[in-house]
Structure formats: structure tokens, C-alpha cells
């Protein structure tokens, strides 16, 4: 029962991060390997604000979101759009964007190490809370709640608004979207920026209950990628289910076997997906 509850709570936050990456990869078609660094940056902001001015991470979130949005928008427009334009095919763009975002991820890690090379340790709402007979920390619950609210808002926006519909159209087919008068480049930039903002906020939330450090980003990039692939690229519902599964499996492995094996368990899931359902749980097989 303990495993079930903390696994689901962890999975909820993972879902938010994966949603961010899904917007970037599923819509803007950029395999962003600096995604985890965006998350850590969100965590660093929360730590910094809390230690320096005792500002609650929930408020920091409101600052992180617009900053990450603008930052990612600038990255897309100035660094990634030239790559999209020069690429002759999808494969070329993938290789270029992978290398370019590697570069960005290293640069971000380098900068963050200069700001703070130790763990971002702070204690926010670390009180026990009784739920369904098992005890969890309040911060996990709050983070989960915030993740659910943001995820829900995003889902509604995507499905019930005009710009949301444009984003979904680009995700299905950029070429067809162009034909019906959607400005694909602008929507891609919007999706990339939004994805970055969601990931940054996810980092702020995660930092309340997981201690981050400057170089941990790549692990979260891995996890987000595994979730996105498991759920099916561009599938929000698939990503949520996949995130919950990963959260549960990781928590189970960490409690029952060894906390050092969480990455290995994520890999096991990844391997099973690749072998048996490479299009993802909800994805359709491409022809």
C-alpha cells in the first residue's frame, strides 16, 4: 500500500515532465536532450528563492513558468529553427537537434555547477501526512496536486481551444497543418516554449521532495523519454499512464530491492516496450 501511494504520487509529477517533453518532441519535432536541465533549473530556482528569501516553491513556480517559456522560445527561435530550416529530412534534423541539445545541456550544467556545485537541499512541508492508512510527506502530496491541476489545465487547453487545436494539428501532420493555414513555425515555437515551461515547473515541484544537483538532469531526461516512448509520441493520455507505471515500478524496486537500481528498472521497462510495443501503449503503428 505504501508503495502504491508513493509510486502514484511520484508518477503524477513524472507525468507533468513527460507532458513537457511530449510537446517538444511530439509537436515541435525536436528531440530535446536538454530537457532534464530545464527541470533542474526549475529546481535550482526553487531552492534559491527558498533559501535566500523563504519564498514558497509554489510561488516560485509562478516565476519559473514565464521565465522558462521565454527562455525556451528564444532557444527555439535562435538555435533550433535554423536547424529545422537547413535539414533536408527528418533524420538529418534528428541528428542535428540531438547534438545541439546535448551542447545546450552541457552548457546549462556548466553554468549551474558554477552557481551551486552542491546538492540543492531545502526542506519544504516535510511533515508526515496520513492517507489511506499510510504515511507520506505533505510535500509529495502538494506536488502531486499541483501537477494534476497543471496537467488538467493543459489537457483542457489542448482539446478545447483554437490554439490548442492548432498544436494538435501540427502534432498529427505538419504538412497538412500548413495546408489549412496554420503557421507551423509559430506553433512549433509555442509548443517548444510551453513544453519547456511545463518541465521547469515540474522541476520546481520535484525539488520539494527529491534532492537535486546540477548534474542530475540527464537521468530525468532519460525517464521523460522512456515515458514519452512508452505512452506513444504525442499521446497525452498514454504519457500519463506510462508515468504512473514508471513511478510505481521505480518505487517498488527502490523499496523492495535497492534504491540504486531505479534506473535499471526504468531500462527494463524501456527494453520491454521496444521489444513488444515500439509504437507505445496508446500509439498507432505507423505504416
Amino acid at each position: 500500500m505504501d508503495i502504491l501511494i508513493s509510486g502514484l504520487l511520484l508518477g503524477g509529477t513524472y507525468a507533468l515532465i513527460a507532458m513537457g517533453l511530449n510537446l517538444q518532441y511530439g509537436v515541435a519535432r525536436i528531440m530535446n536532450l536538454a530537457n532534464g536541465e530545464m527541470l533542474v533549473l526549475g529546481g535550482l530556482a526553487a531552492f534559491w528563492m527558498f533559501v535566500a528569501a523563504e519564498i514558497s516553491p509554489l510561488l516560485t513556480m509562478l516565476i519559473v513558468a514565464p521565465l522558462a517559456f521565454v527562455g525556451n522560445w528564444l532557444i527555439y527561435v535562435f538555435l533550433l529553427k535554423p536547424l529545422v530550416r537547413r535539414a533536408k529530412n527528418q533524420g538529418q534534423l534528428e541528428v542535428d537537434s540531438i547534438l545541439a541539445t546535448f551542447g545546450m545541456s552541457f552548457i546549462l550544467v556548466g553554468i549551474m555547477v558554477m552557481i551551486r556545485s552542491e546538492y540543492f537541499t531545502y526542506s519544504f512541508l516535510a511533515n508526515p501526512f496520513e492517507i489511506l492508512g499510510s504515511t507520506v510527506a505533505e510535500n509529495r502530496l502538494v506536488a502531486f496536486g499541483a501537477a494534476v491541476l497543471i496537467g488538467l489545465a493543459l489537457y483542457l487547453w489542448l482539446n478545447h481551444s483554437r490554439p490548442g487545436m492548432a498544436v494538435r494539428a501540427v502534432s498529427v501532420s505538419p504538412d497538412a497543418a500548413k495546408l489549412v493555414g496554420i503557421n507551423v513555425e509559430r506553433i512549433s515555437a509555442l509548443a517548444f516554449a510551453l513544453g519547456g515551461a511545463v518541465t521547469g515547473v515540474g522541476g520546481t515541484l520535484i525539488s520539494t521532495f527529491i534532492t537535486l544537483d546540477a548534474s542530475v538532469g540527464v537521468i530525468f531526461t532519460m525517464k521523460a523519454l522512456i515515458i514519452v516512448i512508452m505512452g506513444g509520441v504525442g499521446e497525452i493520455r498514454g504519457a500519463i499512464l506510462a508515468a504512473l507505471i514508471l513511478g510505481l515500478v521505480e518505487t517498488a524496486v527502490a523499496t523492495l530491492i535497492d534504491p540504486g537500481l531505479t534506473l535499471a528498472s526504468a531500462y527494463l521497462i524501456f527494453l520491454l516496450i521496444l521489444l513488444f510495443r515500439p509504437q507505445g501503449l496508446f500509439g498507432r503503428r505507423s505504416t
Partner: protein
Amino acid sequence: MKQVSWSGIVLAIILFALAAIVPLVANGYHLSVAVTAIMYVALATSWALFSGPTHYISLASGAFFGVGGYLVATGMSDYDQSFWLMAAIAPVVAAILATLIGLATLRLSGVYFVIFTLGLAEMVRNLVSWIQNNFLGSRGLYVLTDFTEAHIYWMLLAVCVVIYIFGWWLSHSRLGFALRIIGNDEAVAKHVGINTALSKVVLFMTTGFFAALVGAIIAPRYSYIEPNQVFSPELSFLVVIMALIGGTNRLWGPLVGVIPFTIIWEIISSNFSNFSTLFLGLAFLLIVYVIPNGFVGLLEKWGRRLRA
């Protein structure tokens, strides 16, 4: 197909002879930089054999290198085997591992492969540490041999020669031709009857084999080995950067990238270690935005312009 050019062979032999006498004229610090450089020449060149034509960015070098070093260490410390036996077993184990990874990921699009190799070194490290802590007991392992840096250097040079001969043979073989077609257009390759998955897996296997061999040979240099040290994700990235900076369209391309980069990296990591990560990031951006075909591509472009 190109004809064998005698001037190329003579040049290669002269370069090899010059490389072979390095340990006789250099010592101490310079020799140790030379060992590092020749290690990266072997790693980057064998990396480029696979990633050059296919454009699949493999980040598995660190994992295979680690498997090589770790197997030598555990074999010598825990099971009293000789260095030679372990150095022969390690590459075979890595090749099997590479085959399994290749079979799982290379049937699909390149992205899955990159993602899978991205965390591979870290995952294998976690797994090995866990096995060691729970079942084997000891944490550090000793690799005690009579090898000097010069011996290690010559062994690595021999590995390089094998890789170059293999690479030369590959570029003239049906397999190499198939890989170039796959790199240009995988759909076309499939339609003309190339078994694309098999070709990729075979070549990925050889990359894994050589990376582990290098890891095994370099192990005596450290004498004390623990998983955290041999499974370094950083190594995978360095190999990618060096190969791409040099250029992967020519067999000797990575060589052009490795030598200057090793020297710069040596300076930066010993004097400005705070900036090393930042520097790696800038190197990646340099590759993507300024020299997408590497130094070799740049030189060839200038060469064409001069002749025109």
C-alpha cells in the same frame, strides 16, 4: 571502387613509424598525454566506423569501455586470472552485449537507439555496483601488471592499426557499401534488398568489441579500479565530439579531431576544471553550427575552392 594508392600506403607507414617511436622520445607527462590520445584515436575511429555512415549517434562507448576495464579488474582480483585471458574475454562479452542492444534498438528508428545508449553507461554502472555490493563483497579491484606506459601505448597503437585495416577493408566491402546506402536513405536500402538491421548490428558489434578491448588494455594504467571510475558517461561524449570535430566521412578524420582535442581537454581539465562541462557544450554547438562535416570537411571544401 577506388584503387589502392601507393602514396597513401607509404604515408600511412611513415605515420605509423613516427607514432611507434613516440615512447622512445617522450616520457613522463608527455607520454601520458600520448597514451590518452592514442586511446581516443582507437575509440573515436572505431566509433566512426559505425556512426559515420549510418548517422546513428552511439553513446555506448563509455559502457563498453567500462565493461572491458571492469572485467579485467574483476577477473584479475577476484578470480586470479591472467591479464591476457581477461583482455581476450572482455571484448567478446562487450560484442555480445552490443549485439543484444543492437537487436533490440537498431530495428527501430535512430532516436530509440540514441536514447537507449544515453543512459547505458550509468545503468550498467548501477547494476555492477549493486552486484558487487550484494554478492561479491569487495569494492575496489586491483590490476597489477608489469606494464609501463610505453607498453600500454604500443598495445593501443597495435589496436589502432587493426582498426584502420578493418576500416579500410570495410570501405571496400559489400557491408561498407550497404551501410553507406543505409545512411543515405534507409528506405532505398531496404528496397534494394539490404538486410538493414543485420548490417547495423554487425557493425555496432565491432564498435563494442574495440571499445572494450581499449578499456581492457588501459586498465593496468589505473591499477586500482572501481565501477564509478571506469563507467564514465563523459567518455562517450568525448568520443563523439572528437570523432565529429575531425570528421567521419574519411577513415583518418577522427584522428584529425582527437589529437588537438586531447591536448586542449588535458589543459582545460587540469587548469580550469570548473569550465570543463561548459567547454564540452560549446564543442557540441561548434560541431552543429560551424563545422557540420568536421575539420576534414572544412579542409576539403578549401581544397576544392583552391583548385577551382
